[in-house]
């Protein structure tokens, strides 16, 4: 579970913009990369992020 407090300090590893919580994902508000959350742990690595189409 990603707490609000944790979400506040997390940022996109690539562009450092804030992230928003999706279903088992964290999405960057700027570069639109979507990172997985596995077993409750966000995997915030550039290689794990896929860029979402509009």
């Amino acid at each position, binding site marked *: 579970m990603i707490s609000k407090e944790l979400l506040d300090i*997390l940022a*996109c*590893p690539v562009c450092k913009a804030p992230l928003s919580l999706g279903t088992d994902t964290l999405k960057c508000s700027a570069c639109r990369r979507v990172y997985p959350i596995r077993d409750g742990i*966000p995997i*915030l*690595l550039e290689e794990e992020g896929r860029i979402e189409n509009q």
Partner: protein
Amino acid sequence: MSHKDRVREEFTRQAEAFAAVAALHNRERLDRLVNAINPAPDARALEIATGPGHVAMAMAERCREVIGVDLTDAILALAERTRRERGLANVRFQRADADQLPFADAEFDIVFCRFAFHHFEDPTVAFREMARVCRVGGRVAVEDLAASEIPERAAFQDQFERLRDPSHTRALSIGELARMFGARALEIETAYSSEVVQPVEYWMSYSHTPPDRAAQVRTLLARDEKEDLSGVRPFRRDGQLFFIQKTVALIARKLPPLPPQSRAGGGV
């Protein structure tokens, strides 16, 4: 294979043995570092390349919250297991690349890293990230191997360290480490050096160094013993070969951006 793949491969292979290494979880060494950093009870701290999480957990006993990040899943799983065994609720571990920290600027009161800089391809990248996520007035601390100030001697140590563990890149000298702090407006407030006496065979056993490479390491250390080539001062006791890794810890305070008039030159 990229260097980061090599790091992941080595620390996956070495995970269990590495986590048990006495020099890493030695209580006295941990306490010395935590005391030197001296966290406020309400501090939020971040450890880069936390590995088995020994330092993160020692720090967590003294502050509000610690996050430990590492590139390697296998070693984070060990850290998480120890965390649960010790019932520490204020530490969390997660995967991240030290070169691209997934945190907003200035979110931490303390950012620290121990015995990892010699695994980084370009330590200035990770260091810049550490400085970025630390708040002004917060502390940044690095402890690592301290190589000779003389490049040829430092290179000799790197050569046998790399043979033993291919994820070793280069150990910095105290001067190089200190200049990294200066370049990021971090005022070093505490510095101390220490030593780790390494029994060569044990040191190569927990890294699972293959026999051919281990033989090369022994040859280099035997030369070093006779000719004093790196500063690690190999010696024998009861037929066993040892050498001494110098280490240094630097603890600094992040300064606010310098006002323009205080920049070099001054001039009235």
